């Protein structure tokens, strides 16, 4: 690797200062499972590594029934899927966190880092979008919040301004009779980047068999993770049956605009977008009806 400078600040203010001073070549280090290989391969031109793991807000993980779930940007995946509250209330996050790269990767990699890496195929982003998550950002101008579906702007790029860092992700408390599912398609059975990923969150009415809310997001079918509001909107007011799910899947498939690359063809991805959306919806429904 090129020569690096390293600091492990203990506060957000220090981190912001270091990022500003380091300019475009400074970057926050969370789990390092994306960043370090990228620096090594000179995919990212980084000279200053600002380790975020000593900043309390970045390692914080808590749930409050009123305010929802707060996940610090550097909280590793294993803390997500081992957490009984997340297992109970946000099983879709468990889906995502437990398939990112294998156990050793999950020992370090974080959902915040996954989001800030801003890959189109990230396994956590579609699920965060489906859960209606918000990104809390801090920088020289103060704090701001951005819906996760607006966070990524292009492959590898996002809305963070110079000097800014992601503090945490916030997920609202799920309404009763809500559940979620993340599914992805990969060529092997683990260790692969998603060829297509789908995150769905479904809410049913308390007493009727009607969908009252639905959010669907796709990964790896566009330059950024793709929120498909029309697919979710289509489901609202409908019964959660095969026909409704097929309709939503068709809308999701129509919204997908994938490319052909070394991982798969555009045709295959488009086809999978529909198949996985349908299956993810079915999976979320099963979780609601069996809980």
């Amino acid at each position, binding site marked *: *690797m*090129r*020569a*690096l*400078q*390293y*600091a*492990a*600040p*203990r506060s957000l203010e*220090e981190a912001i200062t*270091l990022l500003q001073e380091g300019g475009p070549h400074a970057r926050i*280090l969370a*789990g*390092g*499972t994306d960043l*370090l*290989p990228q*620096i*090594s*391969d000179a995919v990212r031109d980084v000279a*200053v*590594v600002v*380790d975020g*793991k000593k900043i309390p807000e970045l390692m914080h993980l808590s749930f409050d029934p009123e305010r929802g779930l707060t996940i610090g940007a550097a909280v*590793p995946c*294993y803390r997500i899927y081992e957490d009984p509250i997340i297992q109970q209330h946000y099983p879709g996050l468990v889906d995502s966190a437990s398939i990112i*790269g*294998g*156990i*050793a*990767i999950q*020992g*370090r990699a974080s959902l915040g880092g996954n989001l800030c890496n801003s890959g189109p195929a990230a396994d956590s982003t579609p699920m965060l979008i489906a859960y209606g998550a918000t990104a809390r950002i801090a920088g020289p101008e103060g704090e701001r919040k951005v819906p996760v579906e607006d966070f990524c702007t292009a492959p590898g790029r996002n809305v963070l301004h110079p000097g800014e860092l992601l503090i945490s992700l916030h997920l609202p408390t799920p309404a009763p009779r809500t559940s979620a599912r993340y599914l992805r398609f990969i060529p092997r*059975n*683990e*260790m692969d980047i998603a060829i297509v990923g789908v995150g769905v969150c479904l809410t049913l009415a308390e007493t009727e068999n009607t969908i009252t809310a639905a959010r669907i997001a796709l990964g790896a079918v566009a330059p950024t993770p793709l929120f498909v509001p029309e697919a979710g909107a289509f489901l609202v007011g409908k019964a959660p049956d095969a026909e409704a799910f097929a309709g939503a899947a068709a809308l999701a498939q129509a919204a997908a605009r994938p490319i052909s690359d070394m991982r798969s063809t555009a045709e295959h991805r488009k086809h999978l977008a529909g198949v996985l959306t349908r299956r993810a919806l079915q999976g979320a429904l099963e979780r609601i009806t069996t809980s």
Partner: protein
Amino acid sequence: MPTELKTGKVAIHATINTEPTDWLSEPRETLLEALRDRLGLTGSKEGCGNGNCGACAVLMEGRLVNSCCVLAVEAEGASITTVEGCGTPEGLSPIQRCFLEEAALQCGFCTPGFIVATKALLEKTPNPTEDEIRWWLAGNLCRCTGYDKIVRAVQNAAAAMGGN
């Protein structure tokens, strides 16, 4: 007191295989490089450099990690277990003995990573099913064995360690 931006070699103190250890690393060195090139612990191997093969796996604060994706400076104050800390020729662990008895290694290059990963698995799940074993070890690539005898060795080790 403001946090120092470290530029040159950094003094690092960590506990490695239960021994307090001090050494110097540049910020750009990975933990894998530090273990192999600074500390003479060449048991952990580089197979891919980017977390895709598990040959460099170590335990950090009891968690399985790929040391090629950790900077040496991040190990400050941490307790690290490498394959060298999983047993010795005079005192082989049950996991190591079972790998030998089941012929669960051929070239042996991936074996340190598997030993460490198996140790982490059995500490967490003392009696894993075959599916759980395969799931846990999916991040450790082996090109020689086809995994069959590795899975048997892990099952035997679980039994030997009283997993039932």
